[in-house]
């Protein structure tokens, strides 16, 4: 897939604005999964992440007239998603690690799937235990592959603040998951 640029995004958005259904489908295919994935990691709840993703896209449709080809669409969507997630987290009660649902029964390759689900559950639980801004920075950096500068722009903080959040977040995750290290490294 060709990497989208601010210019190619702007062309795509102009078509979306004109009601081009094919362009809309391409845009949604390109970014929706990433937004849902980010929201799920931030909120720890798939249904809430889908609500946030829907709201982010609705805001995008409402802002099509004002769009300027300066930044990639994904950065705009990530910033909106981040802000929506932070708003929800502020209203939400703290998550207890024991409240996290058990994984579903695996279908294929049971041992590997079960191992992956256990790891996913443990990692997700640890990520959820991080403070909100540390979690946001960690997910942007390690899941979305953003640079510190991009993360700083989206979170509207300085690069130094991002570096600090990442450093504390990584140390925190490592501390929380130290016991699982052999499993995480595949020694099971």
């Amino acid at each position: 897939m060709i990497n989208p640029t601010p210019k190619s995004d702007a062309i795509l958005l102009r078509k979306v604005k004109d009601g081009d259904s094919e362009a809309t489908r391409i845009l949604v295919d390109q970014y929706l999964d990433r937004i849902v994935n980010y929201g799920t990691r931030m909120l720890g709840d798939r249904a809430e992440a889908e609500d946030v993703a829907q709201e982010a896209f609705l805001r995008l449709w409402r802002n099509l007239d004002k769009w300027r080809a300066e930044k990639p669409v994904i950065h705009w969507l990530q910033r909106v998603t981040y802000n929506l997630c932070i708003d929800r987290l502020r209203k939400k009660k703290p998550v207890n690690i024991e409240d996290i649902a058990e994984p579903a029964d695996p279908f294929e390759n049971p041992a590997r799937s079960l191992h992956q689900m256990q790891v996913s559950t443990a990692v997700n639980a640890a990520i959820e235990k991080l403070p909100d801004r540390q979690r946001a920075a960690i997910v942007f950096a390690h899941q979305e592959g953003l640079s510190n500068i991009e993360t700083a722009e989206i979170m509207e903080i300085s690069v130094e603040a991002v570096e600090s959040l990442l450093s504390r977040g990584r140390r925190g995750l490592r501390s929380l998951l130290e016991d699982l290290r052999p499993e995480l490294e595949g020694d099971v």
Partner: protein
Amino acid sequence: MVDNPNSSDQEDFEFVQNLFEQIKPEFASPELKAEILRSAPSAKSTNATVTGLEELIEYLWPFGPLWRPAAGLAIAAMFGVMLGATDPLSPNTVADADTALTEEIVAFVEAADGQLEDIQ
């Protein structure tokens, strides 16, 4: 949180990167995708749903659908003005009609004159 004095930043980075590589990614449900596509602007489709008539309208009036009703209104107004200018009850029109009627009567009388003589 317990700080691990033996861990370097690079080790922390690699540890967390390894974590994220093992997490199962989440994908949007088809229902969400359909809902978002439904909420998108949908003025027209660029697929082959555009008919020949729509293409002709687009060619003749390329200013978008908002102007089409305005154009219709303007044409209707012009037609109304033209009708008003050629009012059949206006004095000029009545005079022309009178002249035409007189000419028709004269022509009829001339034609009928010979026929009456034959009868007598």
